[in-house]
């Protein structure tokens, strides 16, 4: 088995807070998920070399930044990590263009002006180049900060709660840009968030941190709704997050399709080809054991039960409907419908319950 391209072993204590992280992964995009105060930002600053750790052994994107021998450590300016801080932190004395070109001062930016143009294009900030930070909206600032990190030719991009400071309409917009950057530029990403929807959508691997320690690590769907993490994600998040594109459209509705062929109808008209990320609460998914007759729900999806978890009077049923779906039912319903792994069922989803996240 080949060694994980990212290995993090960090221990430090600071003002009564102890961080003790041990994690390894090989996925290109990793999400570090946890509530505020869990130590995510401190971990990020340690990866950046900005916080001295009592113990740090860090390999990121295949390159050792701290270690492997004890005491060996790269200075922040040697790490070549593209940091996007929570509140953008654009240099106020520079224009947008000077901000994005900032790293060029060091003279050896990989790709140079090609990296600059690519960043400008990917974040669609060509019209903003002459402006200064105080003349930008929050979403624009965040996009410039991402472009600045990208244009520095980083070996990995580190995003610290990139959407946290934005209100909802802006979030959706910046999230679309981020997903585009993620998919088009083949750069490793470490994406920090406290938002379970973002965590589900962003990465192939989620590392959950609580009280300075890793409590779970694995694929988003398995990890975020596991018993250990559920209390963290349930209060805030949508159990189902679906990434799709508009396949056809009408006057008042459109039909979207995921990469794996699941089709859903939405009650809005959108241009064909547009990317949509949808959120759906587990308790909004109805399960029918028989083919439903004439129902108002616009989405009736044949599915197979893959897992049933009963806790008290509640049950969580995981379905495979082309895409995995989580439904929340009562324990009594499970019994009445005799649901168990392998059962063929129909999932009913009212189109109004599908919420567009991005």
């Amino acid at each position: 088995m080949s060694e994980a391209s990212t290995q993090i072993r960090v221990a430090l204590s600071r003002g009564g807070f102890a961080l003790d992280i041990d994690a390894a992964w090989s996925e290109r995009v990793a999400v570090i998920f946890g509530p505020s105060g869990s130590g995510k930002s401190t971990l990020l600053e340690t990866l950046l070399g900005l916080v001295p750790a009592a113990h740090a052994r860090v390999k990121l994107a295949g390159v050792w930044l701290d270690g492997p021998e004890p005491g060996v450590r790269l200075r922040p300016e040697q790490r070549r990590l593209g940091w996007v801080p929570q509140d953008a932190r654009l240099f106020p004395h520079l224009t947008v263009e000077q901000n994005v070109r900032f790293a060029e001062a060091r003279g050896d930016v990989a790709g140079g002006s090609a990296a600059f143009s690519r960043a400008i294009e990917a974040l669609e900030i060509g019209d903003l180049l002459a402006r200064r930070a105080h003349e930008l909206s929050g979403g624009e600032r965040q996009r410039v900060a991402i472009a600045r990190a990208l244009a520095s030719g980083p070996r990995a991009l580190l995003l610290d709660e990139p959407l946290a400071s934005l209100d909802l309409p802006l979030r959706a917009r910046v999230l679309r840009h981020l997903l585009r950057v993620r998919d088009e530029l083949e750069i490793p990403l470490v994406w920090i968030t406290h938002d379970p929807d973002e965590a589900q959508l962003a990465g192939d691997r989620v590392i959950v941190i609580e009280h300075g320690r890793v409590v779970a690590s694995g694929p988003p769907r398995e990890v975020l709704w596991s018993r250990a993490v559920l209390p963290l994600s349930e209060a805030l998040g949508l159990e189902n997050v679906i990434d799709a594109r508009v396949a056809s459209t009408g006057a008042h509705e459109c039909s979207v399709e995921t990469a794996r062929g699941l089709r859903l109808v939405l009650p809005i008209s959108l241009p064909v080809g547009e990317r949509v990320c949808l959120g759906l609460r587990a308790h909004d998914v109805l399960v029918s054991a028989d083919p439903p007759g004439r129902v108002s729900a616009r989405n009736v999806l044949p599915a197979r039960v893959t897992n049933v978890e009963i806790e008290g009077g509640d049950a969580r049923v995981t379905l495979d409907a082309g895409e995995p779906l989580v439904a929340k039912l009562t324990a009594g319903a499970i019994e009445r419908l005799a649901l168990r792994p392998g059962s063929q069922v129909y999932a009913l989803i009212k189109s109004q319950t599908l919420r567009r996240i991005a």
Partner: protein
Amino acid sequence: MTAGELAEITGLTLRVGAVATAAILPPAVALGLLFARRSFRGKSIAQALVALPMVLPPVAVGLALLLLLGQRGPLGGLWSRLGIEIVFTWWAAAIAAGVVGFPLLARASEQAFAAVDPSYERLARTLGLSPLQVFFRVTLPLARRGVLYGALFAFTRALGEFGATALVAGILPGRTETLALGIYSRVQLAEDGDALALCAASFALALAAMLLAEGWLGGGAASGTPGGERGRR
């Protein structure tokens, strides 16, 4: 007093002020940065010592400088062996003006640097800049209004310096006679007309410096806030 003499005195005053300010700029700014960014043992004592020339009677500062720079003083002795005389030259006036202006610049720089959010500096490091590059590309530009304000104050303080300068440079017409010294000596000689002419020149310089400060720095607070950028376009 001829117009030529007036121009000469004004020119000397400007030269003393400019040399003094230029000379103290690097060390005072460096010290301001040190005080703003580092905590160390004895920091408040160091800060108090740096502020001393600002609060001591200038004549006392002048006496200290005279003892230090005079032929029998530790520094003066060294220089005079090299054939350099400091005391009673315009260099002595510049040194006196620099010493008195130093705390103003160091203090203003310290406050300006303290107002710069260190997270910008950390960010610049991650973008590949060395600490020195970060200072010149981020810290100093963000603090420049405060630093310039301090430099301007030190300069205007130097233009008007009297007590320390009189002791260490004397009042030698054509050699060390600055505006402030000139006014005093003309009053002593009851040449009130000349004294008033020198006063008018001082007034003009001070006004020009203040107008410069208002126009150039927007007259605002000494910090690197983005609002201060508007005036530059």
